[in-house]
């Protein structure tokens, strides 16, 4: 779990964070905080699907589900269990 959290957090920092001085954590709002926009969310979803060999249905990929690293981990786990 901790590995997955860190992997996703690092990916978000590397790919989406424009301000390199900004500190973000597992509960930092990504979508509502403006770090990841709705268009870029598609690439984040693609990353999760590729990395964890899962398929996330579009209706589950809501801005709320993608809003923090913690909520993303919860979403990924939901599909890993299947």
């Amino acid at each position: 779990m901790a590995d997955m959290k860190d992997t996703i957090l690092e990916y978000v920092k590397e790919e989406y964070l424009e301000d390199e001085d900004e500190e973000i954590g597992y509960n930092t709002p990504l979508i509502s905080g403006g770090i990841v926009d709705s268009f870029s969310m598609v690439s984040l979803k693609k990353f999760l699907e590729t990395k964890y060999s899962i398929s996330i249905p579009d209706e589950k990929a809501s801005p709320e589900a993608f809003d923090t690293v913690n909520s993303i981990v919860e979403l990924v786990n939901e599909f890993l269990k299947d």
Partner: protein
Amino acid sequence: MSNIGSYEEQIKDFDWSISEKELGYKDGDVINIGWYCSDRICEMGKADKTAFIWEGFGGQKKQYTFNDIRLAGNTIGSYLRGLGIKDGDRVCLFMDRIPELYLGFLGVLKIGAIAQPLFSAFGDESLHVRLENAETRAIITQRKHVKKVRKIRDSLPHLEFIIIVDHDGKKPLQEKEIAFSLKDADPVEEFDIFPTKAESPSVLHYTSGTTGQPKGVKHVHYSLIGQYLTSKWVLDLQDDDIYWCTADPGWVTGTSYGIIAPWSLGVTQCVLDTGFSADAWYGFIAKHRVTVWYSAPTAIRSLMKAGEEAVLKHDLSSLRHLASVGEPLNAEAVIWSEKVFGLAFHDTYWQTETGAIMLTNFPGMNIKPGSMGKPFPGITGVILDPETHEPIQEPNKPGLIAFKPGWPSMMRTYWNNEETFQSKFVNGWYLSGDRATIDQDGYFWFVGRDDDVINTGGHLVSPFEVESALLEHEAVAESAVVAKPDDVNMEVVKAFVTLKPGFNQSAELELKIMNFIRKKLSPLAMPQEIEYMDNLPKTRSGKIMRRLLHAKEWGEDIGDTSTLEDDD
């Protein structure tokens, strides 16, 4: 009673002098949008009225009176003038929706320079082509975006100043960079505003076409005449309104109706600079008692997805008028808004080139859900036969949306591209590039684009630009980009690619290519899907047949394929 009163009465004997008179402008006078949006309102006795309520993420909040925005415009203008920036120079505003963007816009205009707002999510290549074309002399930006400017500054010989509005001193400034802090600057009370005239350039907005690089649409200070009256009659802005335009000033709606409209009318406006969240948006409306809300179909459809429960959690009773722009507003969205807000979203239609609203559903008008409405008074809008370019008289027959040139806010040219500008006019009509029908009651109904430009979330993306950027990726041999239908954004970008030898088709590579485009161009331009192909369909002369791929995505008949290259 709405400001327009009766549409039928207003279109009789309409003259733009109505707007000139209300603004106290006479032919030949000085007309400076920066002055009209701040100093004039103060002179009208509203100096202490709230002009601007701004909220950022995490509860950040700032509030400005009309006198505050007057002083801020003076202060920024004075600073720029001190650097040697003068009338006619292009000054790029490359910021998130922070107060400096809105106030900087006024400052740039007050010195007679040309404001060049650019969407802050643009990648370095998108930024480069626009700054290079405009020969921009200064860019005002934030610390978080300066990395993108640093990547390209050495290849922009005209760029002399990179002004950072939130430099914190933790890291040293680099070549051409200077720090400017509005809150630390001494407010400039008396300021010699540059005496711009009607045809003096004011704003340069870039828009994408099917081919070639983005075009810089040049607007002039006289555009105010159109923006003022359309705001008054279409958005129905009144003195006690609290107005919220959700558009980013990196695009034309965000300047014409997100800065100029409310402030030229002396109306209080709110701005929320955070990412999208239905709860945050409704909470913002409730908190500030927003009365007039101008948004976009993509946002409205996203709110629909969030459901009615999200609406019921908030007191939205302050809302009295809703309008939409960016792409056609589907009938379901109009019906939904009537149901949940008790108010219909009024669709408006216009473009970067038109500078102001051209077709619209007016307050008090019988709305036909899904229709674009009728022409604004003084606007002659028709549907042209695509072959003859003559107006079609027959109702419901599709053709090209065209307008008779001469409205005040019409673009004056494409920057350094007069030839393309001239090509937009045929038989004395301005061609919008969109297709529609007119019904028996005079309502316009959108049919589609007349070219391959992709309208995603209300923003135009050039397939040519994305295809060219794709070819810069090491794995891509050929590319073709088309629009793909999307429930929320109307269209999204889809790419078809063939790979160079040594590269294998994989999901990992697809993700790498997507991110490559996102960073180079923008999130809007990033293909939401990439399909690998062994060969792209081509004509016998080797031209990629984008039309076939588009038809495939939309489930349309592929039409004549007689010129298709043999499939060996």
